């Protein structure tokens, strides 16, 4: 992970600040930085989203392709995640430097989406055992400014909300062979229901308290962090601990409660922004990468 070097005095200043609920940029322990979300930024994908959370910049593209269902789940489609840490984010990611972080994030995303209820995979099935939709979710890290997992999960949810999968019809011949017909109308498509898609909330333990949405400097002072994925209804789908330090059970419980609370407000804010964007339709001025 990209990290900054801090002096002892700077770390002490940050830790004392967190104790008093006043972080370096004036936020409280449970406040997020100002986030900007935009969908439909990449034209040749089925769905895309870009999220800017402070200095963290994430781009997610979703491509829907036809494939064969997995053997153990013949009547469901599936999601494939790939995370690319571009060298744009930090020089450490040059060449193969970002691979380790990329696989860690991809594995976390698989775990978060492993729950049955997050995405309705049965709607992605075309022909049981033969054809299904595979959603390839590609995440691109453009800038690393702390709190990667949260920003990535927000972007993935926004991209899935934006995904439009073309409607297909299965035609059966007299001989029994099936033919798949794609509808000609580009607006004739199915949308995914993202109400139960979870978002990751990272809680970093600094001193005796924990903070949400840590910046790079705060991450350097944190001993351990807890990543929890929360759905919009407040249900926990997965939990992961990162960092060299240890967490005692009481703090884990407190962090879980904070995470659930913060997660619910995060979903509300995100859904509001996505609905606002949807309602503006074609009249919205697209910003993309040239703003």
């Amino acid at each position, binding site marked *: 992970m990209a990290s900054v*070097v801090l*002096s002892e005095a700077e770390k002490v200043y940050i830790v*004392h600040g967190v104790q008093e609920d006043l972080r370096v940029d004036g936020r409280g322990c449970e*406040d997020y930085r100002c986030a900007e*979300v*935009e969908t439909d930024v990449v034209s040749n994908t089925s769905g895309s989203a870009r999220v800017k959370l402070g200095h963290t910049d994430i781009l997610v593209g979703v491509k829907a392709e036809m494939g064969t269902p997995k053997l153990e789940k013949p009547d469901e489609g599936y999601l494939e995640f790939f995370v690319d840490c571009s060298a744009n984010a930090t020089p450490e990611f040059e060449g193969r430097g970002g691979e380790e972080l990329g696989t860690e994030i991809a594995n976390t995303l698989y775990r978060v989406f492993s729950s049955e209820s997050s995405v309705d995979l049965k709607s992605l099935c075309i022909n049981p055992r033969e054809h299904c939709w595979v959603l390839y979710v590609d995440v691109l890290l453009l800038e690393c400014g702390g709190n990667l997992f949260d920003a990535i999960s927000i972007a993935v949810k926004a991209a899935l909300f934006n995904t439009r999968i073309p409607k297909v019809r299965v035609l059966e011949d007299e001989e029994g062979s099936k033919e798949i017909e794609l509808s000609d109308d580009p607006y004739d498509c199915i949308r995914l229901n993202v109400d139960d898609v979870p978002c990751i909330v990272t809680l970093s333990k600094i001193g005796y308290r924990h903070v949400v949405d840590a910046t790079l400097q705060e991450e350097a002072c944190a001993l351990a962090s807890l990543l929890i994925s929360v759905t919009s209804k407040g249900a926990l789908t997965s939990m992961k601990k990162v960092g060299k330090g240890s967490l005692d059970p009481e703090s884990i419980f407190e962090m879980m409660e904070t995470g659930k609370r913060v997660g619910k407000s*995060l979903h509300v804010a995100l859904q509001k922004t996505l609905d606002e964007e949807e309602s503006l339709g074609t009249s919205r001025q697209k910003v993309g990468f040239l703003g």
Partner: protein
Amino acid sequence: MAAISMRLPVVRKAVGLSAPRGGEKHLVVPGDTITTDTGYMRGHGTYVEEEKLIASVAGAVERVNKLVCVKALKTRYNGEVGDIVVGRITEVQQKRWKVETNSRLDSVLLLSSMNLPGGELRRRSAEDELAMRDYLQEGDLISAEVQSIFSDGAVSLHTRSLKYGKLGQGVLVQVSPSLVKRQKTHFHNLPCGASLILGNNGFIWIYPTPEQKVEEAGGFTTNLEPVPLSDREVISRLRNCIVALVTQKLMLFDTSILYCYEASLPHQIKDILKPEVMEAIVLETRQRLLYLEG
């Protein structure tokens, strides 16, 4: 209570870029011809090719009598003798420290350019060399002055005055060096209750004003006591104001920062970083500065 602000992106133009002050600026990009008149001397950022003066960096052309130079808008720090810089120690080598100052090469702080504790004046011995790490380690922040520049452009620093030395508790803000205005003094004690060091290299250090004149040991001992909440609020507000000024491309100097601080008082500290609040505050600051200029 959690506060999450999510919004759609909007194209915004920086306040500092609109409305030219004092005539149009001649902006050039690398490769642009500045002039074909051979009477001019070429300064920084230019070169001569086929009797034409061509720019080698992207920026504004400045002309002083016969000297033409191009001042780059976004650049690494280019050291000049006498500049005040704030730097971070990256390496501890045999008789020197390597300091990161946002320039092309790491700056150098020689052991002989550093004051000894107690202000003794003597040759540095082998014991001093071994004790180097006890004083400055990797990651420490220092304030120093540029003593000289090596032939390859690397800057040599010195802390031979009691006001320079290791920095204690505070907040560092990194900005582009071209936004820091050159002034007589870069150490400011603001009336709002915090102190500021505006490094010419773009590193700005905000720290709580030391209470009384500490017996100026040159910063050998760091004070790790908790800073009171009122001081923290001032420091956080100043930090956000500086970030707002930088995002809107306004020059940084003590008056502009102070005006921005006063303009931001009606808002909550964390709201200053919202784009619309930022614009409003910086607009007010700019108006006050224009009024000051008369």
